[in-house]
């Protein structure tokens, strides 16, 4: 597979706009529609109302996926660039701890704290990208190491403890404005989801409508060709890891604000949920092709699925089985349809 060049090429050789290809391209949107329909069908009802569609419940779903959703936006860029980032969950934990300790223990102001935390995430990501690029070490290995380093750093930053964030004035308190991340607009729409939404729009624009986005796709599709056509391949590759570091930092800040809490153990396994959302969204794990809208739909779908299973008291074991099955089906659909495109060449 890795020797057959490029999905940009694949896209060109995939002219047969069969219905199947079309459906698979938007498989996660389709999946989302299916899950939502199933949700409506199987939803428990109360006084004739479908609980699944109750505004509070919809708000709960989109709140529950806000952090992993934010992570999956950056993950989409990395995977399109034919990389992977396993460190995002740990960096989220590190950034939540940093936010909490700077605001509460060090008495920093809001903006200086947020700037330092975001800078930490970006630099952490960029260093991983640089190591992977300069020393030609697989991103899997580098970010696996990064995961350990980030967890270690967060234990140091938190002094082996969790940090509660209290709001107020004076030492030991965070500025009350920071608590807004845990609020709901109009009592319904979660602010954490608003952050995800804004970033999603920016990410979709960046991927689809800018030169940078096209460069990322080109680098992931065929690195050599991209280099020959004058694209700064190394810089692009480093930048996508800086991007995942950035989203991990934002997610960490949202985590700290949403739960008034920084814990060095938090965010464990989030990287896998983010990767799952990207895969379900139809982004090719070999790079070179992907869809931001697909990722977003994939993330929402996972949240809606977990919600409807929980509302029906389906056991935790069955929830894991269902999620696993959906990931496999999504990947299989991709390979089946994209695979036909490759063999047709």
């Amino acid at each position: 597979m890795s020797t057959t060049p490029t999905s940009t090429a694949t896209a060109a050789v995939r002219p047969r706009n069969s219905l199947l290809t079309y459906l698979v391209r938007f498989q996660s949107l389709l999946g989302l529609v299916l899950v939502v329909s199933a949700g409506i069908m199987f939803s428990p009802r109360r006084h004739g109302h479908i609980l699944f569609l109750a505004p509070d419940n919809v708000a709960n779903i989109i709140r529950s996926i806000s952090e992993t959703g934010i992570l999956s936006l950056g993950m989409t860029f990395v995977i399109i660039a034919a990389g992977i980032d396993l460190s995002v969950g740990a960096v989220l934990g590190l950034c939540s701890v940093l936010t909490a300790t700077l605001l509460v223990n060090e008495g920093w102001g809001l903006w200086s704290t947020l700037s330092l935390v975001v800078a930490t995430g970006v630099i952490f990501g960029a260093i991983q990208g640089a190591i992977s690029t300069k020393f030609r070490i697989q991103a899997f290995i580098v970010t696996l190491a990064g995961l350990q380093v980030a967890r270690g750093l967060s234990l140091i930053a938190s002094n082996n403890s969790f940090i509660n964030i209290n709001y107020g004035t004076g030492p030991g308190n965070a500025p009350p404005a920071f608590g807004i991340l845990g609020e709901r607009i109009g009592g319904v729409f979660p602010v954490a989801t608003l952050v995800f939404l804004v970033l999603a729009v920016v990410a979709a624009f960046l991927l689809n409508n800018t030169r940078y986005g096209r460069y990322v796709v080109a680098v992931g599709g065929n690195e050599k060709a991209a280099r020959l056509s004058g694209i700064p391949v190394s810089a692009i590759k480093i930048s996508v890891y800086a991007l995942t570091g950035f989203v991990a930092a934002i997610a960490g800040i949202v985590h700290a604000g949403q739960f008034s809490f920084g814990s060095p153990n938090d965010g464990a396994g989030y990287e896998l949920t983010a990767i799952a959302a990207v895969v379900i969204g139809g982004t090719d794990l070999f790079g070179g092709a992907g869809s931001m809208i697909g990722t977003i739909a994939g993330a929402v779908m996972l949240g809606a699925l977990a919600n409807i299973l929980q509302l029906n008291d389906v056991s935790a074991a069955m929830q894991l089985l269902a999620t696993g099955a959906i990931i496999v089906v999504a990947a299989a659909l991709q390979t089946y349809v994209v695979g036909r495109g490759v063999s047709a060449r």
Partner: protein
Amino acid sequence: MKVVLQTTLLVASAALASGAWAAGKPLAKECGPNNDYVIGFSQANFKEPYREHVNHELERLVKNYPKFKLVIADGQATVNTQVSQVENFMTQHVDLLMISPFEAAPLTPSVSAAYKAGVPVIELDRKTSGDNYTAFVGGDNRAIAKEAGEWAAKTLLPDGGEAAILEGLPSSSPAIERLEGFKAGIASNPKIKLVAVQPVDWMEDQAVTVFSAMLQAHPDIKLVYTSNDLAAAGAYIAAKQAGKADQVKIIGTDGLPGPSGGIRAVADGQWAATFTYPTGAAQALELAKKILIDCATEVPRNILVPTQRIDQANAKSLYGKEKF
């Protein structure tokens, strides 16, 4: 005159009614012996044997209450997931919420929201911050560990010696409290020297690795305190591998039942003792009955369930009596 009298009576009876309302309002919005009730229990995670034990106890005991349906959700050791579950229980309109929060502060807003919406909240084992819950049922980690320390200082090592601690997951509150409690307890005997403290994250395999290394570095360790039964099991394996199973006295925490639990390990003489961390399942369900079926207007806010020391004196008979 008549009008005045009537008005006075009316005002007086209204005042009386509102007074009664303030003092005597049932804790649950809907209660009484004839309804069926759904109790949602949000468990921090299903991974730790202690939490499984709590679930089993609740499921076993809830059968004594035919009006109750118990739904248990797995928080998967993630605050985000557990918050979602509390929210989902609210969507489902459960009649009573039970919760063992994975961490206190992050779960507080959603639990408070449930409580303020009129759903009675019973917190098991761990509290949220603030006052927005109906009642708490649990043990006192610090007191239990301190009792273990004092008992060890007096009974196991009266002449002193080297001791070690295998901590739980650093940064989790029970791990911190048990560590501090035990340290305070053994301080009652100044001849005991604490030579090593390491976290093993509640895990048996980690405990084997860590305690093996400790025995290499400190071959004279005579006592090891572990923050849970799993770690104690790991410590025993390490001591046995080092040929020091007789030299090292092991103390566990939790006192889990069953063939792989701590009670049996003490009965078999592998450990010196284990200190139960009570599940509080019976007490919590009894509270739920008072609130939902008896329409209680008031219940005790804190129910501290005491620990029980399981040592050579009682382990065998306790293990024999188990119903599992």
